[in-house]
């Protein structure tokens, strides 16, 4: 009377439906997390380095202007000719100072080689302002997010002679404690030598955003 025969199929149906729903959702959950598992692993623990995405290639976006002597190239032509070499130099600087310094791999000699001799000793004593510096061993990986520069190039009769560069670089650094932002804002006075550009003077700040 209370348990009509017809209720039994319904109860079974509810059980089956519940199980199916459970299986479906479990499968859905598994499917959704596929591919994101490596991200979530680091994030879930919160104590290990968590590279959230592959590091984008470092590429300095440079805007250059030039000052030229009378009777030579136009300022526009001179700026265009100087730009690739400057970009390459700034790429190298940021790579040495930040990207490759992560993980304590830097010995800084490569970076210091980019400085003109009369300023090299000062650069060595101020690496924290110019690079990851003393923080480098704690950083497991560094992911650049922005690198931009504005340059004024002094162009000679045939080639660039010097340049003033305002450089801005933002990146995310991964450490054992988590991730944080690293920012570089600097003014570099560059000298063109037979071996490429060298930093002849600097005014630089590295650290978290102000």
């Amino acid at each position, binding site marked *: 009377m209370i*348990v009509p025969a017809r209720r039994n199929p319904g109860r079974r149906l509810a059980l089956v439906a519940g199980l199916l729903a459970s299986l479906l959702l479990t499968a859905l959950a598994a499917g959704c997390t596929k591919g994101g598992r490596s991200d979530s692993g680091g994030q879930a623990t919160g104590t290990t380095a*968590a590279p959230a995405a592959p590091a984008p290639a470092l590429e300095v976006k440079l805007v250059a202007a030039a000052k030229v002597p009378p009777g030579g190239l136009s300022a526009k032509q001179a700026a265009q000719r100087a730009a690739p070499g400057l970009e390459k130099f700034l790429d190298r600087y940021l790579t040495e100072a930040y990207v490759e310094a992560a993980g304590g791999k830097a010995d800084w000699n490569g970076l210091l080689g980019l400085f003109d001799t009369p300023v090299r000793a000062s*650069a060595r004593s101020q690496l924290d302002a110019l690079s*990851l510096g003393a923080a480098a061993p704690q950083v497991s990986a560094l992911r650049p997010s922005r690198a931009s520069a504005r340059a004024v190039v*002094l162009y000679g009769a045939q080639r660039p002679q010097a340049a*003033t560069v305002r450089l801005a670089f933002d990146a995310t650094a991964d450490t054992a404690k988590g991730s944080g932002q690293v920012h570089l804002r600097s003014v570099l006075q560059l000298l063109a030598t037979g071996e490429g550009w060298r930093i002849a003077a600097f*005014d630089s700040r590295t650290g978290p955003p*102000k």
Partner: protein
Amino acid sequence: MTRRRAVGGLARRRRAVALVAVTGLAAALAAGLVVAVSPRRAATAQEGAAVTVQRAHAGSATPSFKKRLVLLTIGSDSGAPKFGRGGSVESGRADALQLVVLDPAKRRGAVLSFPRDSYVPIPGHGTNKINAAMAFGGPPLLVATFERLTGLTIDYYALTSFDGLTDMVNKVGGVQVNVDMNLRDHFAGAFLDKGRRKLNGGQALAYARARKTLPGGDFDRSRHQGQLLLSGLGTFQRQVAENPAQVMTWLGVLRDEVRTDVPFPELLRLALLATKVPPSGFRNVPVPGAAGMAGGASVVHLQPSAYSLFGRIRSGKLS
């Protein structure tokens, strides 16, 4: 029995409902986890939990020089077509002569301003007015004359003309000068009131040339020339402090308007060093002398105190 079956059915229904509820809860939990660990959410969580990787560090440096620097600045009376003065700038007479001595480590120095009529020995040319040395043998002979006179080794010279000075000042937008007297000098075209003034190229040249109506004559003139040099340094520093790329502007102007034996890399280093040497760290010293005559010409005889001054400079005493 019927009642037991009824009770048993109720229990089964409750168990079924509970099972569905637990399953749903598990599903919801799973779905929640999925959302929580999806890449977008992970990135957001990461930003929120950003750690300080590095404290802020600031630093700056300009080139360091190990030894004292001595630079001879020369104003030639030739090679200025705009002022109707022909010839080459190197073969003219040196009418403005400043010896700039800089101690890079202490970031201070002295500007010794020489009267152009200083009557001194010129190697290979007897004794004559010092400004004739360049006409006799160009900048190298003038440098040799100064080295013999002062006992100092001159590292470099920098030479310009009337045209060069006026163009230079105009191209950098003028120089701030503390004009130290009211000037009404028709000969030099200097009409300036005492006080802090921004001078254009023509006014700067007039200030550097005015002599005949000045109480101290050639001594006042040479002092003004040294003052103009240090005013240029101050203007350079102010402009670079506002915009570091002004270093390139000034170097371009120097390159176009000044003849020098300073190699470009050294010129850049000196310019960068100059951003950190305050003009107040320089003494503007007119070299002591007395007006006199030699061979019917008006000359300046350097006083013994001038040679004492050179000795002090040689021994590194700039103050």
